[in-house]
């Protein structure tokens, strides 16, 4: 039995324009794919919550006909549940209705049960019951800037939520609006975009209004964040008081993805696209780029990726896991999904010809949870 309880497997949840697929692997190289779940509904957000002794997959699901909702599964997708009244509902009086859940972010291990969500219309939500019921963050919703925030092509949403270990410092990024920071756990918010360009506005350096595509926190350096902007790649070392460009050495400064290492300082990944007007991998050659020195230098990583790929990778269609070495995963709008078990040095194809990939999330799970999986531990049990 001891073997069973410790045997680990990997799960990669793939949210697409037309449903959710789950891939499992004992080694992050050979993958078994199951699905679709929620066929014909898009799945733009996934959170895998392994705290509190369970493995809960939370998914934001949106049907063109029947609207958005949040489902969760505690058995790796064998069964799904949704709260009858809905996990996320705008309160009466706001006059707003949920359009899409863009982000589901389980909080730190020290705060089990706390899950954050970022949504369209631009809003941040917090759950304290594992993602079954969320409460609207009023500080951000009532912010005087809200009427001036705009919509990017994909909609107006809060898409990145970063909470520091203390729980007091929270950074949110929205398109469009930029980065907002709270130092009181989300009660009050101020824009923090100094140094980030908004070339598409009359004043290219406004206080807010930037189209920040994704932000991620350095795992080991307090106050350090990275941002992939709508043109521009940036780092801050002072909790977003000042941002500086780290785009030099990249083939393009446009893109949607920003990933950071789960433990190591200075390591981040981006997936450049040529430009706003040409949202394709530069020259049709898809590559991940990694820095190990906080953006001073970048290394091109394309081992195992196709020679020709003209599809873009969206902001949440990439993730890392927490294993050692860290795994890197991403999916394209052409429905190909790739995994690396060695921080991007080598990729293998997990799936191809799926619908447009909107979101991927990966985690280590107990092998005993994997439906139908035959593991050496199970055989020996």
């Amino acid at each position, binding site marked *: 039995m001891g073997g069973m309880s410790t045997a680990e497997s990997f799960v990669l949840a793939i949210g697409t324009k037309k449903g959710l697929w789950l891939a499992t692997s004992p080694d992050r190289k050979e993958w078994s794919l199951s699905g679709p779940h929620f066929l014909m509904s898009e799945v733009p957000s996934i959170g895998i919550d392994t705290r509190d002794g369970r493995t809960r997959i939370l998914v934001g699901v949106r049907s063109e006909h029947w*609207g958005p909702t949040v489902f969760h599964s505690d058995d790796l997708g064998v069964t799904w549940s949704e709260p009858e009244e809905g996990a996320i509902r705008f309160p009466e009086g706001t006059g707003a209705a949920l359009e899409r859940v863009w982000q589901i972010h389980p909080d730190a291990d020290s705060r089990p049960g706390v899950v954050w969500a970022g949504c369209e219309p631009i809003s941040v939500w917090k759950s304290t019951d594992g993602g079954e019921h969320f409460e609207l963050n009023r500080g951000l919703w009532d912010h005087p800037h809200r009427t001036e925030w705009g919509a990017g092509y994909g909609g107006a949403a809060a898409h990145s939520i970063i909470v520091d270990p203390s729980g007091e410092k929270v950074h949110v990024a929205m398109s469009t609006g930029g980065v907002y920071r709270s130092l009181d756990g989300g009660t009050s918010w101020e824009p923090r975009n100094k140094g980030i360009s908004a070339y598409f506005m009359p004043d290219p350096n406004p206080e807010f209004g930037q189209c920040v595509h994704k932000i991620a926190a350095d795992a080991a350096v307090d106050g350090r964040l990275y941002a992939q902007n709508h043109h521009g790649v940036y780092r801050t070392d002072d909790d977003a008081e000042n941002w500086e460009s780290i785009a030099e050495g990249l083939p393009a400064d446009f893109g949607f993805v920003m990933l950071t290492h789960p433990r190591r300082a200075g390591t981040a990944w981006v997936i450049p696209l040529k430009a706003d007007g040409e949202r394709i991998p530069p020259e049709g050659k898809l590559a991940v780029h990694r820095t190990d020195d906080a953006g001073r230098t970048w290394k091109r990583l394309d081992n195992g990726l196709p020679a020709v790929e003209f599809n873009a990778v969206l902001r949440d269609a990439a993730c890392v896991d927490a294993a050692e070495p860290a795994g890197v995963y991403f999916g394209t709008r052409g429905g190909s999904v790739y995994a690396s078990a060695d921080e991007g040095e080598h990729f293998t194809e997990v799936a191809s010809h799926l619908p447009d990939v909107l979101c991927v999330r990966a985690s280590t799970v107990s092998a005993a949870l994997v439906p139908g999986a035959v593991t050496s531990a199970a055989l020996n049990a």
Partner: protein
Amino acid sequence: MADVSVVLPSVLQPLAGGQSVLTASADGALTVAGLLDTVTGDYPALSRRLRDETGAVRRFVNIYVNGNEIRRLQGLSTEVLPGQEVLIIQSVAGG
């Protein structure tokens, strides 16, 4: 009192305990809004599929009263008479 029937598309029937038709008894005219409140009262997940939290009918949900889609009538205020049937049909949408 005569019943008013609400006919559900098959994809929504699991959210109504497997029923294809929900009925409300009526001794006079009902509004579509009142009718939906009544028949989905026990099925909040079904209610959310039809209307958002402001009460608005979702964009690609079509509701027919006597063969006419309610957006061409009086919307959710459209009256439904005892004995009439209300059809809920998803519109042709998506790609």
